[in-house]
């Protein structure tokens, strides 16, 4: 397979990557860049050194083919069906997936999923008063899974979190058209992310990354532009931003 024409680099060069070089060949989890793949265990060790770790979905863009199996797998788990009183995996309507593949011309596909940003601009944007007992706003970070969750009972549907995500990070949060409450936030499927499990091309992984990593939350268009420039020498996607 043509898993991207990645530049080969030795592990010695690991400390001299520029932001753009990261994006060229390696994975970016929801826009967060980590070291993987051909950079080997040395690089991974570097990525993990020193700081507390966080497990999240990481995309290897050179491997993604744009097939959208991840969308179906995500939706199937996170939007289950009720059949004869039993809860079963759903049929995988991609509209309800928390991961979404953005496809471009020239051929570039960018799966977009919650970057689990360490500084949570979405949570900070939530105007709901923190609960005295838990200190949580309506939108909060779950301390066990580190996922972002929404307390729908307290959420006022103001769309501030979605706006913050769209302007500052990946834009993955979508307000429900009727209620305005945030949707499409990754649940990590309780620790067994179905997108990772079902990707036929091993383009997604569920890995530990440094929590204080420097780069995260790039919007899909920016990632696509970097990839297209690197692969095809052009980033002209036409009129749509």
């Amino acid at each position, binding site marked *: *397979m*043509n*898993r*991207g*024409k990645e530049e080969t680099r030795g592990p010695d060069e690991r400390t001299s990557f520029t932001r753009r070089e990261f994006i060229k060949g390696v994975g970016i989890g929801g826009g967060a860049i980590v070291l993987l793949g051909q950079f080997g265990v040395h690089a991974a060790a570097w990525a993990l050194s020193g700081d507390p770790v966080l497990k999240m979905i990481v995309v290897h863009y*050179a491997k993604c*083919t*744009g*097939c*959208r*199996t991840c969308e*179906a*797998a995500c939706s*199937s788990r996170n939007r289950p*069906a009720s*059949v004869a009183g039993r809860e*079963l*995996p759903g*049929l*995988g*309507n*991609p*509209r309800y997936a928390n991961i979404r593949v*953005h*496809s*471009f*011309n*020239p*051929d*570039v*596909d960018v799966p977009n999923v919650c970057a689990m940003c360490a500084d949570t601009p979405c949570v900070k944007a939530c105007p709901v008063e923190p609960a005295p007992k838990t200190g949580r706003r309506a939108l909060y970070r779950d301390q066990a899974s580190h996922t972002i969750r929404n307390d729908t009972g307290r959420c006022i549907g103001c769309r501030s979190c979605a706006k913050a995500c769209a302007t500052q990070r990946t834009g993955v949060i979508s307000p429900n058209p009727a209620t305005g409450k945030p949707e499409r936030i990754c649940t990590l499927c309780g620790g067994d992310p179905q997108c990772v499990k*079902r990707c*036929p*091309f091993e383009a997604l992984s569920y890995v530990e990354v440094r929590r204080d990593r420097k780069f995260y939350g790039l919007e899909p268009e920016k990632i696509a532009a970097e990839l297209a420039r690197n*692969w*095809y*020498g*052009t980033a*002209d*996607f*036409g*009129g*749509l931003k």
Partner: protein
Amino acid sequence: MSGKPGYHGVILNIDLSSGKIEKREVAPQDLDNFVGGQGLGMKILWDRLKKPGVDPLSPENPLMFMPGPFSGLPVPSSSRTCVVTKSPITSPLKSDYPHASTVSYSNMGGFFGPEMRFAGYDGIVITGKAKELCYVVIDDDRVEIRDARKFKGMRTDAFDKAFLGELGDRRYKTVYIGPAGENLVPYSSILHTAGRAAGRGGVGCVMGSKNLKAIAVRGSGQPSVADHTRFLAALERARTVLKTSPFAKAMAEQGTASAIVRSSNAGTETVRNFREGTFPQADKIGGDAAKRDVWVRDIACYCCPLACKKSGITKGKYGGVVHDGPEYETGVMLGSNLLISDMPGLLKAIYNLDDLGLDQISTGNVIGFLMEAYEKGMIDRKFLDGIDLRWGSVDATLAMIEKIAARDGVGELAAKGVAALAQRIGQGSEKFAIHVKGLELAAHNIQANQPRALSYATAERGACHLSGDDIATQNKRAVLDSIGLCLFPTFEPALEEPMLSLLSAITGREYDRAEFAKTGERIVNLEKMFNYREGFRREDDRLPDRFFEDAFTIGPKKGAVLDRKEFDLMLTKYYKDRGWDPETTKPGASKLKELGLDSIV
């Protein structure tokens, strides 16, 4: 609406003459008998065109976009959309009707069919003709016809981008024609994602005749399934089969391009306008060369684990092309068939054909014919508007492609296809005008491949390399094109069981191997009845004389040629085994009754 599981039961009807948009219920028995896709499209075609001889470019001819019951579900490789209409390119030798032509269907991968089903439709039927160039936007229930004049003449790559810009959401899936379709070149294609095409049989020409530049669709729903638990279990088995299939792995490696060298080595490649079956320079345009010099990415259609499409960028004199390919058909028809072995030049031709919206197969065939006629001195440079159309010339090929798309000068005649060209040029050129019923043959040469000769001769849309080399395969493939599943994964034999189980679980109708085959046979027989009514007879299932007279002079199959007597016997047996009259090819009354077609035709 029909209440049948696996379907919405709704066909979206858009009449571009009146602007009337209507959601029509599909008769449940039509879904049972014709499944979807190609089959259901054929049934609608039969119902709509009540009389033979309808002009395919008239407003009356329906242009249909047909997904199948697998579409919109995460079944591996269920990405296909079948475009069905009456062909603007085929014609019988004799008929009472001046506009007689065959059925036409052309199948494409990508994301359009699934998205149609998300939007709530089992098919889109376009009739009529808009006053000005228009496009259609479908957003779930909301359907609008809009002015497309500003996009007039726009090539498909630029249009693909500009159109999404206009729509404002990347989630829209779009199909469209290029300048060739607008100019009514009979073998125009319909493009999707600027690199996937419903190329064959002139579907883009019919779209152009309706003044329809494009359709965009976006949806939020999904069809149901009859047996949820069984569906999930069969889905799991299908995924597992393809995960471990050596065939699937090979497709992921180089797609169909790996066959460029393989087929040349087997003496089954289309070379030098079908004169030879082996191309000594095949390795220069094959999968290994493309992988080394061009490709950067594997691209997959909806939920497909094969990713047979490869995209890249070329360098050199014809460099700078960002596109997918070569695939087997595109690489051979524009490469070995024209003796072009310059990879960037080949990809430039492939890109330009997609960009202009021309069928790669027919166009490559037409240019090969002209190159041979030019070499033989049957036509001169003046005939070709000054183009020095020598074998292997990339520049001349690129120039001819532009002429054809614009129907300019020699392009006006060349746009009509090889049958029309041979008629005009005469001098015995019909011997190497490589078509059946007016549709050009593809990249599978047949002097050394008699079973494929049967496929070309008997396919109901005109020369088709995919219709199947025998009755059982033909019946099976007619259903495959009806359920929305791609042909490629089904080359893995272990997929058959999960596939039948999935179809049964989705539709609630039990499909075993026999029922599947019978459904396909029903579809083929309906197509045959349509063609028979138009005036097609056994003499139309003929192959050009080249295949019986010009033995290969090079390669491992040197000396290979088809035997006319053997071929005729094979045809006779085929009709008899089909239950058709071997003299006329008319399906027998008992066969029609057996298939439940007696009440329809």
